[in-house]
């Protein structure tokens, strides 16, 4: 009985959660005129014209490739730099550690609008404008602090005795970190990777400011097309449906790391 109540609650939540997404899917399979005129629960004359346009027009599908490219770069950067740093914060006290830890997070607190111009100036000084690297690096500003904070939380959940035992057993630090410690916090690594992916994927202002043509992200291409000749709601909805797909795949791959948690008996 208890289990059932819990399932019912979950199902209700998911139905509510999926309604706007269903509506987006519904819109993506209809023409613009049809969307603006008729209220309908499902498309009566479904058309895939919107999707065809995205997959055949290079200015559209290159946006997905660009986004995917710099987002992957950003996730790798963020995890590689944040893992050792999070370990340092969770295991050691050192000069200025608490201040540095909190300072990291303050980088997420600035309103983007006014910071865009200085960003553009800084990156053009180094000739980085319109490269995937520039977007990946600028997204580190908010993803690296997040990664350090989330990973530190998970690492602090692992008892320090495990580290001590491993060192007594003669493990070197890299070997201990890769073979014992990382498997223990894989839940945290999974969550962190997904969050970095997600925040970088949906970020619009920085990505749009730092790119012109070569590395234009999909979110910016959507707004550009929208402002050109009024709103093409159907096309926009189709593009929206397609932006969900890569992220859904990412979470499908990390789901096991999320769901398994960690077993203390491993060491």
């Amino acid at each position, binding site marked *: 009985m208890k289990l059932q109540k819990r*399932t019912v*609650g*979950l199902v209700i*939540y*998911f139905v509510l*959660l999926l*309604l706007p*997404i269903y*509506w987006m899917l519904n819109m993506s399979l209809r023409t613009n005129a049809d*969307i603006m005129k008729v209220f309908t629960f499902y498309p009566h004359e479904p058309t895939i014209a919107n999707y065809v346009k995205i997959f055949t027009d290079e200015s559209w599908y290159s946006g997905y490739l660009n986004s995917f490219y710099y987002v992957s770069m950003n996730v790798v*950067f963020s995890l590689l730099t944040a893992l*050792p740093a999070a*370990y*340092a914060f969770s*295991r*050691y006290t*050192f000069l200025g*550690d608490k201040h540095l830890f*909190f300072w990291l997070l303050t*980088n*997420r*607190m*600035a*309103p*983007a*609008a*006014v*910071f865009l111009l*200085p*960003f553009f*100036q*800084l990156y053009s000084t180094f000739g980085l404008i319109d490269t995937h690297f520039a977007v990946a*690096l600028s997204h*580190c500003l908010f993803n690296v602090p997040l990664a350090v*904070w*989330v990973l530190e*939380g998970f690492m602090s*959940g692992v008892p320090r005795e495990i580290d001590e035992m491993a060192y007594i057993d003669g493990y070197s630090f890299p070997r201990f970190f890769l073979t014992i410690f990382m498997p223990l916090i894989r*839940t945290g690594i999974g*969550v962190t990777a997904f*969050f970095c992916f*997600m925040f970088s*994927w*949906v970020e*619009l202002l920085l990505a749009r400011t730092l790119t012109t043509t070569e590395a234009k992200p*999909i*979110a910016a291409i959507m707004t550009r097309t*929208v402002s050109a000749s009024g*709103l093409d709601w159907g096309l*926009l909805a189709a593009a*929206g449906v397609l*932006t*969900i797909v890569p*992220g*859904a795949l990412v*979470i499908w791959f990390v*789901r096991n790391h*999320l*769901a398994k*948690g960690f077993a203390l008996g491993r060491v």
Partner: protein
Amino acid sequence: MNKWEDNKAWLMVIPVFLVVAVSAILPLMTVVNYSIQDIFGPGQRVFVGTEWYREALLDPRLHEALGRQLLFSSLVLLIEIPLGILIALMIPKKGWGASLSLVLVALPLLIPWNVIGTIWIIFTRPDIGLFGAAINSMGLPFDHTASPLDAWITVMLMEVWHWTPLVVLLAYAGLRAIPEAYFQAARIDGASNWATFRYIQLPKMRGVLTIAILLRFMDSFLIYAEPFVLTGGGPGNSTTFLSIYLVKQAVGQFDLGPAAAFSIIYFLIILLFCWLFYQALIKVGTGDKP
């Protein structure tokens, strides 16, 4: 906290410090620089000291926007944190149900923010949108373009729909990281579900919940794209949050000085609140340390 004391740990932190500092410090200094000058053009700048700051702090419309922003962010925290924990508790621990739930929960997070606003415009339209039509068919008049209350409800619903999943994922990962032994011990002691939650799960989730609260606070305080696309800050000024007001001020102005001063004040407000939350949440932790 019994940690090792070792300044060599800095070596592990240096990469993060460099990566973040490159993008953080120079732009921040530039904005501070703007905020104390009156810029007429290249090479023509006048030092004005704190004038822009005084102007911003005395602006009554900024006070109103700040009030709205505080109310909005408080509601966000009050709704999303408990709801997120509740849903995380309902998601099964393993099996296909867990996998499916995690993928479904994550979906709203993956849509670019400007698209979310656009989709919700249609979704809430009374004539062609599911939500608007459903509310109207229940006999309730609903129009977020005319009534400030309806606009608030719509923006709140969108925000809760969009961001509760973040809290769910964090809380769920936190729950999964609790060793099974704790639950076995609780079962042996005959602890009720509530007691298990209050004395085992909640304290163990403190770390992830701290992150969730801080993230939700700062991101909701900076919210821009979704309400801007959905309501444009209206009707009237009823959903003009701080960032929307900031952009209204900055756009079309040749001089970035006042907007820069506004940004610095904005930043300091968020910093202050986050610091207070952080201090409070650390203290809670030392009370009932596991």
